[in-house]
């Protein structure tokens, strides 16, 4: 793979309605950040929005949802 990874990065938006306490935020961010191909993960507690900057060829959006689920929260990919 000679292609620069930055060219492949996309931002996938997940939404979770389950976040019920701010302490879950670092937990989810850390779990997502540990995935291969994920450059950055940001969890917004107030709105339940999860922004993930990642390489979709390495880590698919479905994997992101699975990861959030393993951290204890249900989420779904959202168009905006």
């Amino acid at each position, binding site marked *: 793979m000679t292609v620069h990874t930055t060219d492949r990065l996309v931002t996938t938006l997940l939404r979770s*309605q*389950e*976040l*019920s*306490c*701010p*302490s*879950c935020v*670092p*937990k989810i961010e*850390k779990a997502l950040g540990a995935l291969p191909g994920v450059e950055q993960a940001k969890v*917004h*507690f*107030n*709105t*339940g*929005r999860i922004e993930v900057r990642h390489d979709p060829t390495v880590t698919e959006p479905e994997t992101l949802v699975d990861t959030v*689920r393993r*951290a*204890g*929260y*249900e989420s779904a990919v*959202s*168009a*905006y």
Partner: protein
Amino acid sequence: MSRLMIRLTNPVQRRLWLTAGSGGLIALALLTRYGLGSQSLWGPLMTAAALLAGSDIAVRAWNSLRVRHLSIELLVTIAAAGALVIGEHWEAAAVTFLFMVGAWLEARTMRHTRGALRELFEAAPAQATVLRDGSTIEVPAHAVLPGEIVLVRPGEKIPVDGEVLTGAAAVDESTITGEPIPVEKASGEPVYAGTIAHNGMLQIKATGVGADTTLARIIRRVEEAQEERAPTQRMIERFAAWYTPSIIGLAVLAFLFTRDMHLALTLLVVGCPGALVISTPVSIVAGIGRAARAGILIKGGQHLENAGRITALAVDKTGTLTEGRPRLVEVVLARGVGAGTVTGVGAGVGTGDTLPWLDVAETGAVEEELVAVVEETSASALDSGWTPPLSDPSFEIGGAGPDGVDETWADARWSPEEREVIRWAAIAEAGSGHPLGRPIVESALEDGPLPTPDQLDEHAGMGLRANHEGREIVVGNRRLMDRFGIELDAGIDAGLAELRARGRTPVLVAVDGAVSGILGLADTARPSAAPMVAQLHRSGVRNVVMLTGDDRAAAGAIAATVGIDEVHAELLPEQKLEHIRRLQGAGYHVAMVGDGINDAPALAAADTSIAMGAAGSDIAIETADIALLTDDLGKIAEAIDISRATLGNMRQNLVIALVTVGALLTGVLMGRVHMAGGMLIHQLSVLAVIGNGMRLGWRK
């Protein structure tokens, strides 16, 4: 098997089943002890219940601990484990079970609070019908290509931002603007994704799809606003950061001094800061969401808190208080012009007909002494108890009582004499594109179509001269009258001066060499301006200040009409800035409403900047602290009210949280509160805080 897997892998499902299982075991334990009188199963059943519910809490506590976060779950886990160790099986089971039930209820209720924006998400349709390669096909809304033609049938939601190509429909734009009255859209007009087309078929050229729509931008901005922490929230988070460790410390101290493990563990349980950490975010999410539904974008907790403190509002005049375009508001007649005027002027008059009032005007305008009769329509309207024409819908909104708007009567019925003057001027103006001509032409067109003059000369900066069926019409200013040797006597001079004093732009009308009247044009106040100012005063804005570059008379006229407290006219942009600083120096929390570039410095200096009519303008949405999607001034007062309600809500939540924790801690130290009861009250306080926040969403 697969259903079991779902129950285990889906965290929500798993948690629900763990909670239900734990509850079942507790019920079984109670049954065996009190129903069957058997003590032997009590301990094991309660322990199993505690382990079932506690496993999920412990896992979460561990996950938080790994990222160096002392979570509420950790407090509960320590307490429950400790209770099991000292043989308090019932307490351990009750605490873990209640915590799980509470967490489930919290998640459910938070979902409703966050749901304020769901209406917006759901507003955008998933599918669009596009015209592609000559046939219509259904595609996902985000797959429409910019420039493609989208078909919208009556009753359907518009899937993209675009421009109407053909068709017409009444479009319900309430999702975008919060305005419940549908707007008529026809060819060339912009439409927004998420709005609903009623009673008409539209063909739309897509200009923005998916994330590049006004709706998506609004959702994004609102969410960013909800995520931006308010100062109060930041304070709470700093507080919570040392609160949890200090509760652990307090429990340890309590154990060291009293050697009472039960007391120490109870302290851990009731010390949970759940209600506290959630008190401000809940209010802010609900408040900003509530405002967004009303077409008000408040750009974050900081601005939400600021808006509630506004005590002075600075407004520009043009386009904010006024309609931003001139209207014909007064006609000053030269005496005798209309003597013996026939009725039915203009009815059915077509091009080329012999106009019935020509003769009248001719006789009227001859040698009679010209005496200006100033007819101040507004004054006479008020004196005579004149009621606005019902056909003007603006009066239904604005009202026009004695203290109401008196400048919105462009539709006021002019007397036959006045109509003659208007019509003469309009015949000349119809051929010209001058902005001051348009309101004259519009007024005249109410009486029927206008003939085209035989000849028309424009005199730049002065006016027009036209020939129509052998008559000479001269319309313009004093210099134009001088040029054509038309005399202005003392009466006309007085009329001119009086019109100017009231902020009108006077237009002289002369027919066949003699002045027949003066038309007074003015930018009129919006019907909503006066009620808006009154509403602002009720909302606690003590000083509504007009800052305008316009001339003093025009500004004063509008200010008097709408009830402005302070007027500063003929200002340069930097002088507007000085006034903002002066108001701030006088102790006011100043908000500024503006749109133009010339307002930019003053907007930047104001404590809160407000943009109006932002639906079509991304810049306004992006830069202002508060963006009103419509240009309805009443929304400013509404924004202030929502902000105040949110601030109040936040304070109530803090009080609920602090009083509960304080009372529980005191109760524990006095030996009155036990672990299970403490957990129950704690969870109830969390729900009370969320429920109180949701109230904001329900306000009308």
